[in-house]
């Protein structure tokens, strides 16, 4: 699938194959006895945990020691503290997912100013430049993910209906791209559909905001939530409504996958491939630590996941079988 989005500075995407490690690269990396730290926005989501697995596994193959994995719990203060503390540990590289675009900028700049290689995941604080303030951004094609989610929801929207968008109110590259792309796809392909947007600042607010949005706009016939964790909250909030609006989201988390497999209310997912993204993050880190140039933006295409391919997509993304309960529900397994 072609990458349709542009990077945070308007860059064209480079495929993850641009950061391939040859056996001699791995040998050279092992000889360096590298130390790397990972600072994530959260470790609570399935996506984050699998991405970190991809990073750690690939770094391990290259003989690089992961000295810390920090869960910032979406807190700027926690991330700033973690980056300050890790900077004093002088690792060779820090891999970070910045929690927003403003308050954590200085802490990230201090990493590169200290001569520590900084590889970013999914978000770039405004004003930071690739090759100068950080090595590369590695993300999914978030614009493409938003378009997939719009297209999947479109089939469930009657003529003249409205679509509700639950957007994240932090200035965050990945979720901004998804939100803008969803609205853009509707504008071009379903001009009859009005898009109504509400924002949430914490995952726990998303359900309340969704309910309020539907109360304010009774014409809403479907919802898009910008990632799966708040989507679960939205599913709970709207599940007692009649009719229950169809929902699309990004990331095939376990609960979203179950909802999709059972027939709703989640009717489609724009899937990321967090394990492969983690591998690409690690390969980018090793590539720069071997003093080779890296692309400004490495992007991975999304997966279109509907009920018809949820089982195989689940296996592709999570590398394990779907639960027996779901397999039985879908008549793919007879015995309990």
């Amino acid at each position: 699938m072609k990458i349709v989005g542009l990077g945070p500075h308007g860059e064209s995407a480079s495929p993850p194959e641009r950061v391939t490690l040859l056996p001699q690269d791995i040998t050279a990396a092992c000889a360096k006895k590298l130390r790397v730290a990972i600072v994530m926005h959260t470790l609570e989501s399935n996506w984050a945990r699998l991405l970190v697995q991809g990073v750690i596994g690939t770094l391990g193959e290259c003989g690089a020691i992961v000295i810390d994995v920090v869960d910032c719990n979406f807190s700027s203060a926690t991330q700033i503290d973690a980056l300050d503390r890790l900077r004093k540990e002088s690792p060779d590289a820090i891999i970070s997912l910045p929690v927003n675009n403003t308050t954590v900028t200085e802490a990230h700049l201090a990493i590169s100013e200290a001569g520590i290689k900084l590889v970013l995941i999914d978000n770039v604080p405004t004003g930071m430049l690739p090759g100068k303030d950080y090595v590369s951004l590695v993300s999914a094609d978030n614009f493409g993910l938003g378009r997939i989610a719009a297209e999947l929801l479109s089939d469930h929207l009657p003529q003249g209906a409205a679509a509700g968008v639950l957007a994240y109110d932090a200035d965050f590259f990945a979720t901004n791209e998804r939100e803008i792309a969803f609205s853009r796809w509707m504008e071009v392909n379903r001009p009859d559909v009005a898009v109504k947007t509400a924002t949430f600042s914490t995952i726990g607010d998303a359900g309340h905001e969704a309910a309020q949005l539907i109360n304010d706009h009774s014409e809403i016939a479907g919802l898009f939530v910008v990632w799966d964790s708040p989507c679960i909250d939205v599913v709970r909030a709207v599940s007692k409504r009649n009719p229950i609006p169809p929902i699309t989201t990004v990331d095939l988390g376990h609960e979203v996958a179950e909802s999709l497999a059972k027939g709703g209310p989640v009717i489609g997912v724009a899937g990321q491939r967090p394990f492969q993204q983690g591998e690409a993050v690690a390969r980018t880190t090793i590539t720069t630590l071997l003093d080779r140039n890296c692309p400004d933006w490495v992007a991975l295409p999304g997966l279109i996941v509907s009920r018809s391919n949820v089982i195989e997509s689940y296996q592709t993304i999570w590398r394990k079988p779907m639960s027996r309960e779901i397999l039985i529900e879908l008549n793919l397994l007879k015995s309990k």
Partner: protein
Amino acid sequence: MHKDKSASNNQRGKGRPRNSEVATASLVAVLNHVRLGQTTTRQDLERVSEYGRAIIADRLAILTELGLVNESETGVATGGRAPRRVQFTKDRARLVVVTLDQSAIGVGLADLSGKLLTEHHEAANITDQTKTVARIYALINWLMTRQSETPDLWGISISVPGPVLTDPNAAFLLETPNFLPSWDKSGLVEALMQRFDAPVWMNSNVDAMTMGELHGGTGIDQQTMLFIKVGQRIGAGLVSNGQPYRGAVRATGLIGQLPVTSGDTTGTLDAMAGANMIKARGTEAAQSGESAYLADLLLRGTDITAIEVCQAAQMGDAVSTEIIVQSGRIIGGVVATLANMLNPQLIVIAGSIAQTNDILLASVREAVYGASHPLVTRDLRILRSQMGNSAALLGAAGIAVSALFDPTFLKGWILLGSPTRHPDFLHGLETLGSITQQANDGAQAPPGR
């Protein structure tokens, strides 16, 4: 669209009325000293501006009431009580910045210091004027609605893919200058001004990117810089004595029209080395099978553009590498001529072709170093821009800030608290409103009238 928050602050409510009208010149001077960071305390301000203590106190009181400066923080004590820091209130309002490229739109929001706060870029075909303008509206609306409070909007600064000839003495635009043949009579400036109630500025992408690179990229603190943008068109920007060089009518750097020769073929630099040449030669190589890598992409339904050729070159595809090297050599030949004439400290190569790979940069370097006088290349650095299209947005913000706080324009609005209340701007809006009304009346008039 936006109500100005300082509307109620125009008149002082109590105390002896200040002779503010005659104080305009000193207000402008004090604000610009503070805004440019030349001073951070009242004592420094007295020294730098050469105004007395009472005048400084009075002017700061007015500027504080207008929401343009604040003294809410304290500085470092040097013996006695810690002084209050005098700071420009850069968050008093926002600027919208837009960049149109041949294949992309970028939008952003900046504060009054010109710092970019947020930005978004997306692919677009800007040959369709109506759709592009609608998309610009939609993206500006998105930017504004995503702010926690709808900010005052003090200006919209646009960069476009073509030379923009404007009156250098005009504080802002009242009509859309011609910048691309397909955008004749687009009315973009007029429409934005009326829709968002804010002054509009327009510059070429190369001018805006040069400014952006100078203030936020590799050009920081450079006195002499040559900026080369390589895309479908190839253009140049020049910084001399730390300032952008504009030429007689702002038509500098149009090097894409220069004739160049490669082998038996002669053509313009744009045609011989730009993105269209790279795309055409890449497509030929894909269709003929000369490049297995590009042929495979074509087989999988991928359109071969200059970006695909650049990425293929970076992945080691020999045919693609040769295409990029040839482009780089031709561009390098022209750049060497400019370098020998201008003796820059720094040459920055920008644009999507340069950004996607290092091969173009390497071959430009080879050509420039090979064809230049040793004195020219002794301390010369040739670098790739790291800013991408953010350079255009940052540069557009810098251009808007310079225009807003230009002393001549500033004198006209400072006591009114906002450039959107400048008499010239209000008159311009009124005139545009009348023209629009007449056009609407004409469109509704019965035939034969």
